[in-house]
């Protein structure tokens, strides 16, 4: 065993109370970092997953028509109000080519055509305004996964089958196999059979979405084989806005990312991340101060021993390493114990506190990267905190400390 490690271990072992204190401080610090990170990451992942469970990462559609205001010759136009041009759903021109272009764009992993518009869903005397969405069953699932959100029936929209949300099903008293009539503003309608009922965890979507086949939607919306939107999934969820800008510029279409459509959520996530980072920073500072103060006291207490080590041929560098090793050991042991406690705490909260649906109220995201990161922070903190006491110890004058203790 190296001499420095031998002495460092012995010093730590003999100063049991002090060692226990700094280990406890480091352990609690690392546990807090791991628990907080796992909790915040888990919550954010769940929120983002929930948001994207019913939403494509990027949606491309024809840009809205804008009313042009021509000023009179030689004068100024004072516009009090510009009315939006009423227009029916219009197809994206040359959409197969545009779809192929979107799919070939870097960062896009899948894209699907959809035809969407407003409609009324009627059953008997009950009627609800709904958002009709016609999908290509072969490719839609690769952009938005709904098959695992089905609570009744299955996700199947062939022929005159329709998939609806739980709230609409309850509002209209529908179950799988029941019929409903869909009528669009184009005064076209048809009767559909409910093939499945989904619950995406979003009341609005559960209430308004009616999913049918692309062909049926094209007929009902009078699109004649056209589509209104191309929905894309990207590789980097948080790079969706950048990809949307690229797609918008390349296709000339209006491209909205989920990030732009959910800015409040993103602001909330960023605020959460900032708060978490701030708390973790203060925890690291508190741990560092704890280690530094205890090791500092240890140096003062062991002045005589340090002096005698120097007198018996121990170099200044070795003395410094003895205290740095103590800091590193505290960091490593504290991070291991803190990692276990943090993981245990996370697992406890994830399993013990659940919502009425049985899902965890504290979803946690524990990953090897988190443990490695926390361990690296603890080790660096231990070393950095031990640096000043180590330097102080190395600079002690052996003649003085031996003489005066």
């Amino acid at each position, binding site marked *: 065993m190296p001499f420095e490690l031998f002495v460092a271990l*012995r010093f730590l072992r003999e100063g049991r109370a002090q060692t226990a204190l700094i280990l406890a401080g480091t352990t609690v610090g690392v546990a807090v970092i791991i628990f907080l990170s796992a909790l915040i990451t888990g919550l954010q992942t769940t929120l983002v997953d929930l948001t994207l469970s019913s939403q494509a990462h990027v949606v491309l559609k024809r840009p809205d028509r804008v009313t042009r205001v021509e000023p009179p010759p030689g004068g100024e136009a004072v516009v009090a109000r510009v009315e939006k041009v009423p227009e029916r759903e219009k197809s994206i021109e040359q959409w197969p080519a545009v779809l192929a272009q979107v799919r070939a764009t870097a960062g896009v992993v899948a894209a699907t055509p959809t035809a969407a518009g407003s409609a009324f869903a009627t059953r008997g005397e009950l009627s609800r305004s709904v958002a009709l969405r016609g999908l290509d069953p072969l490719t839609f699932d690769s952009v938005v996964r709904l098959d695992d959100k089905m609570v009744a029936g299955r996700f199947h929209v062939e022929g005159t089958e329709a998939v609806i949300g739980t709230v609409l099903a309850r509002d209209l008293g529908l179950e799988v196999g029941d019929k409903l009539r869909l009528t669009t503003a184009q005064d076209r309608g048809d009767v559909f059979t409910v093939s499945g009922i989904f619950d995406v965890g979003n009341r609005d979507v559960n209430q308004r979405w009616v999913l049918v086949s692309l062909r049926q939607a094209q007929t009902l919306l009078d699109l004649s084989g056209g589509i209104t939107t191309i929905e894309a999934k990207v590789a980097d969820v948080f790079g969706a806005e950048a990809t949307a800008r690229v797609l918008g510029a390349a296709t000339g279409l209006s491209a909205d990312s989920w990030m732009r459509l959910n800015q409040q959520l993103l602001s909330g996530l960023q605020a959460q991340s900032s708060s978490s980072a701030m708390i973790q920073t203060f925890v690291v500072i508190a741990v560092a101060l704890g280690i530094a103060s205890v090791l500092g006291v240890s140096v003062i207490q062991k002045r005589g*021993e340090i002096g005698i080590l120097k*007198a018996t*041929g121990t170099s200044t560098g070795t003395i410094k390493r003895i205290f740095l090793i103590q800091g590193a050991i505290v960091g490593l042991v504290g991070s291991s114990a803190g990692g276990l406690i943090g993981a245990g705490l996370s697992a406890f909260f994830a399993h013990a506190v659940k919502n009425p649906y049985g899902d965890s109220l504290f979803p946690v995201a524990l990953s090897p990267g988190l443990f490695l990161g926390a361990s690296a922070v603890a080790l660096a903190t231990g070393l950095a905190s031990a640096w000043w006491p180590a330097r102080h110890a190395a600079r002690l004058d052996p*003649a003085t400390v031996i003489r005066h203790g």
Partner: protein
Amino acid sequence: MAEPAAAAAAPAGPVLRLEGLVKDYGGGEARTRALHGVDLAVGRGEFTALIGPSGSGKSTLLNLIGLLDRPTAGRVVLDGQDTGLLDDDGLTRCRGRAVGFVFQFHHLLPEFSALENVMLPMMAARGRQTPDMAECAGALLGQVGLGELLHRRANLLSGGQQQRVAVARALAMAPRVVLADEPTGNLDTRSADALFALLRQVNVRAGVTFLVVTHDPRLAARCDRIVELVDGRVVSDRPNRREGS
């Protein structure tokens, strides 16, 4: 007692030579001169007492000889090596190899066993613990009469036993010179006599040079040579005619 290897390979001539040694503490008007040009040569195997009143510079001189401090002026030549030419690491290595210390307050590491305390200088020199060190340290402790207490923690030993461990530690690296700063000052008369006898035994059998600071005229009278320091100057340096010598 086994003869230290270093002593066996030692060159001829004085093992320790001090030339015009000056030591000042503080600076400016607060400067105090502790040593005023001390010259001294100590031969191999000599057992020298360094006496003098408190504040005469004995400990300062011992610190300079032990390379724990640097002189303001003058030279310390240890085993033929001008130590003024060495950097801090060189001084540390030279100190670890050539000098052994026995202090009044033994200064053992209380959290280490007697064996480990003796092994410390060896571990510091080699950078790690090796099995032969335990053997060597055990033998040294056996020679100072502590063969049964190898694994007892230092703070559980009596004062006399602790000082014996300190002697064994001082001999661990087979030093040229052992510097003892009032080694019996903290012991009762009986323990002091026993420890002094042990030091003499090491000196005679292994040929190790001893320089012993003492206030005890009884012990000084049992040394080969007595050097008296007063106000930082050597005022007397005389061979001691001992009973039976």
